[in-house]
């Protein structure tokens, strides 16, 4: 997995609360494999009109923010459906960090699996950052994960992130490697648990009622 240490880039503000994963990537694009590249479907139905033409006033379509690598969003960002394709669409577009007052839990878990940093700041800090970007769209923003800081112009904010997720991003660790190192504990748990909770093992079910 790609590591995240520091990033300096332009940042695009999207001031929408509860911007759910259905918006981040609409359902009709979920049949596609990751290899198709999902970036072009990011926020598709908000970015594009019914004919598929880009809406020039949508923040990500504005020239200053097309190359943004950072998004600044509203509260409860990426709530809703567990679709990891919401993360794929962001990452494939080029976004490496999202800064908001809060994230949907499942999305935040999916993000760390794909090297996407979810940085949590206070409501008023997000609002100040959005206002600064509105006033100066090309303002470079530097995110430092080790220091947990966001620097823009003369301001520096601290952000929060789960400490374990921070370490995983800094080191590019994958869960599976850590889990494999606990193979003997998993085997011991399984043996102990089968004796302790025999009812947790599903029996062979009887044949189903054949009516269609």
């Amino acid at each position: 997995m790609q590591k995240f240490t520091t990033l300096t880039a332009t940042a695009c503000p999207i001031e929408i609360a509860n911007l759910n994963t259905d918006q981040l990537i609409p359902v009709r694009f979920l049949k596609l494999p990751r290899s198709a590249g999902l970036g072009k479907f990011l926020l598709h139905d908000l970015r594009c009109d019914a004919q598929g033409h880009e809406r020039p006033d949508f923040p990500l379509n504005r020239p200053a923010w097309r190359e943004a690598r950072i998004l600044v969003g509203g509260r409860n960002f990426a709530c809703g459906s567990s679709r990891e394709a919401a993360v794929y669409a962001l990452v494939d577009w080029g976004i490496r960090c999202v800064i908001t007052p809060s994230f949907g839990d499942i999305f935040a878990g999916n993000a760390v699996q794909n090297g996407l940093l979810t940085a949590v700041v206070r409501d008023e800090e997000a609002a100040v950052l959005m206002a600064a970007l509105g006033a100066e769209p090309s303002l470079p923003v530097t995110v430092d994960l080790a220091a947990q800081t966001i620097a823009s112009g003369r301001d520096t904010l601290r952000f929060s992130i789960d400490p374990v997720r921070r370490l995983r991003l800094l080191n590019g660790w994958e869960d599976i490697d850590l889990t494999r190192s606990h193979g003997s504990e998993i085997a011991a748990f399984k043996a102990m648990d089968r004796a302790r909770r025999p009812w947790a093992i599903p029996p062979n079910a009887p044949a189903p009622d054949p009516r269609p």
Partner: protein
Amino acid sequence: MNEPRTLFDKVWAAHEIVRSEDGEALLWVDRHYVHEGSFHAFTRLGERGEAAAEPSLTFAVADHYVPTGGSRASASNPEIARMVRTLEENCAKHHITLFGLGDPRQGIVHVVGPEQGMTLPGLLIVCGDSHTSTHGALGALAFGIGASEVAHVLMTQTIWQRKPKRMRISLAGRPEPGVAAKDIVLALIARIGADGATGHAIEFAGPAIRSLSMDGRLTLCNMAIEAGARCGMVAPDETTFRYLEGRPYAPRGAAFARAVEDWSRLKTDDDASFDRDVQLDASEIVPFVTWGTSPEDALPIDGCVPDPTSTTDETRASYLRSALEYMGIAPGKRLTEIAIDRVFIGSCTNARMEDLRAAAAVLAGRVSKVPGLVSPGSSQVKRQAEDEGLDRIFRAAGLEWASSGCSMCAGMNGDVVAAGERCASTTNRNFRGRQGRGARTHLMSPAMVAAAAVSGHLADVRLLLAGRTQ
């Protein structure tokens, strides 16, 4: 003396394999449910040359993309047929039991799990779907995960998690006739917000929960995710045990008795503390509907939609303008004056027997003023509803009686609401474009959807229940 613990604490502790110094735990997974949307994870296994670690603890259901009309032998849309076929191939390759198209046990995964007795109290259950919270209604710890985590669970039967905080929703009183679990949970989300329970495991407790049916509890826990919760749980009791006994995958005979003994201990200790406590009185809750584009945009049916000019908070006003514009509703409009174009009764939220009966009780002898689709939560629910004659009531009312799947809740299978159309729906999300691009969704209970159908506009079902029993 041990520290008093909550139901959630007990189930969590029983699954901890390892707890790291930084506070994450490696948890054992008792049941892993997969569906057509899980293909990214199977691709990952293929890339790594890995096999599923515990296929006997993994169950697959075809639901998200399955057609609900016609013979269903094969989907007519080739892309959709490919999604179902890919699931079949992955299950065959990894020796996973599949309830596929044509299987009498097929249905929506969150209906099928409890119905088949695969979901049990005290189990840890994951699925690559946010509405996995549903299974907590039986006292399981159940939550939705993403594709990378699905791949991890397939490979190891474990998952890394940080323990969430604990939140108790206590429900006093008894709901009035015409008020359902859906109304309770919409009232809750309206109060605490769509992120009101983020980072928390909810336990639903109190007298109103004890007297609630299993179907009602499943609806409540299903919608816990719409409040942002990691999971929702109800302590197992006699209602749970009676529901489970005799189901195909539930323990049988002496094993069931032993299980009930263990399950009976799965309740919150008297002195256990929660990080947050919320109290609601079910007797004060009236039928709720949503007016906007988040489940938190819910109001009692006798109310009016908000007016952006009546708030001084510019962020809030901007949100209201945007939501009302998308929904095509004038500010301040009476909810009961909002005309609808169609109805949908279905989804993992509200398509079980009790839901279909509640809708049929309103529709019997009446005709819907708008077209609509009824998709039962499972093929088994469909058969039982037909045995009870409910299909005839829906058809006589002018609604389409379809097969089971996720259908118009997410529109993946092609069952969509047209752009600009307004749908009264028993589903869980009124997000922009959720039921189809440009579709306008109003969430409500099955009885309220039936009331809207026969009225042609959002309506208070209590006025239509006079002389009828639900």
